[in-house]
Structure formats: C-alpha cells, structure tokens
C-alpha cells in the first residue's frame, strides 16, 4: 500500500467515522473500499467519511464513495462526507456529486445529521 495514504476508524455517538488522509487514487482506493464494505456488511447502514486529511482524490476515489453510498442507501442508511478543502470539493462539483452526497464541513456536524 502506498505510504501516502492512511485510514483510521472511530465511533462517535454510535456512528462509525472513517477518516482517510493522504492521496486516494487507483493504487490506494482498495483498502478504503474494503473498509467501507466491511462496515456495511457488519450492519452499519450509515458511515461518516471524513476526507479532511485528504490532499488528493480522483475519479477512482469518487467511484469507491459512490459504491459505498449505494450500499448504505440500500440498507436505508447514508454516507455523509466531511470536506472543507475547495480543491477536493471541486472534483465532486464537476462530476455532479455535490447533489448526490450529503456534505458537511466538520465531523461533528456530519455525525449530528445522523438521526
């Protein structure tokens, strides 16, 4: 796995929060996909994905997040994202995904949005 990418997982108010940091691309995305898939499989229908530490993200990363979102929604949950960096947000904007994901500026807000 690429040294430039890291995943951490905590639980806040009973909601799993996956924090990714570094660069997400075709080389580093697989562990993120596996982690999110494992959470849905283990019965977590809503997962907050914290992208505050992400310095780069491409179409492969978007694909992994869209896949996870689909699985969460099928389980009647959701996949709120935490993004602040305009550069990262822009990639979601040009691909029309700001209208698809709930996006928050802090982990606290994202966790708070989960009823």
């Amino acid at each position, binding site marked *: 796995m690429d040294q430039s990418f890291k995943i951490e997982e905590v639980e806040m108010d009973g909601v799993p929060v996956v924090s990714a940091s570094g660069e997400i*691309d075709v*080389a580093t995305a697989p562990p993120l996909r596996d982690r999110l898939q494992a959470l849905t499989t283990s019965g977590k229908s809503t997962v907050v994905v914290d992208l505050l530490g992400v310095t*780069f993200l491409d179409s492969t990363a978007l*694909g992994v997040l869209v896949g996870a979102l689909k699985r969460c929604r099928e389980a009647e949950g959701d996949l709120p994202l935490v993004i602040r960096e305009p*550069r990262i947000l*822009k990639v979601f904007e040009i*691909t029309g995904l700001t*209208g*698809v994901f709930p996006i928050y500026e802090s982990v606290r807000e994202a966790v708070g949005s989960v009823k």
Partner: protein
Amino acid sequence: MKTTAAPARERSARPHKTAGRLPRRRIRLAGDATSLREARLLVGETLVNCPSDFRDAAVLLTGELVTNAVVHGGGWFLLQVDASPGRLRVEVTDAIALQPRLLALSGDREHGRGMAIVDALATRWGAEHIGSRKVVWFEICLER
C-alpha cells in the same frame, strides 16, 4: 500489471523560475502501474510556480489519463509534458487501440468519471491513433 523495471526519466530542460508563468519544459516518463504517483509529482513540480488551481487541475487530469493507460491501456504508458508560457500539454501514450470514451455523468455508476473530469477542466483534449499506439492528451491554458 506491475513490472519491476524502474521507470525511465528524461528531462531535456530545467524549469525557469518565473512566478505565475509556465516554464518551457519537456518531460518524458515511461512507466507502469507503480508510476502513477510519480507522474502526478512530475507535473506538479513542473508547475510549482503557477497558480494553484491551474496546477491542481493539471495534476488531476494527468492522473486520470495515466490511470486509464494503466487500467484500460495495458499497464504501460509514456507520459510527455510540454509546458510553454501560458499553456500546458500532457500526452499519455499506451499500446491499446481502443479509445477513451466520454461517458455521461451519473450519480449511480461507480466508474466512468475520469474522462468527464478531463472534459470539464481541459481547454481541449483528444485522442490520436497511430498504428496500434494511441495518444490521449489534454491542454490547459493559463488564461481561461
């Protein structure tokens, strides 16, 4: 898809340091799946004195073309970066005759956003076929 061969690097010129101006520079990187990050670094480094949104777009688009060369193009690629004042041209050559396709955006599909990102941010882009090789390229201009 990975090979143990180290990517070959050639640089024909050092960048000029003129803030906000594109240095005239040509870089070639013959790489494989493991060189994706190196390709992005090379482009970012070339544009170190350029406005950051321009540099970010160039790095992102380079990554998209290289990813496609690696995923759909047979794993091997040749990257050529031509920076001249006000304009960057990036060419990624692979050995597969199939073309990149610009897919319609969807909130549902897990793949198919790479060329849409290129189409959205590039000033122009295209694909060129020469025998069984193929070059996918984009250009971004500083003044947009």
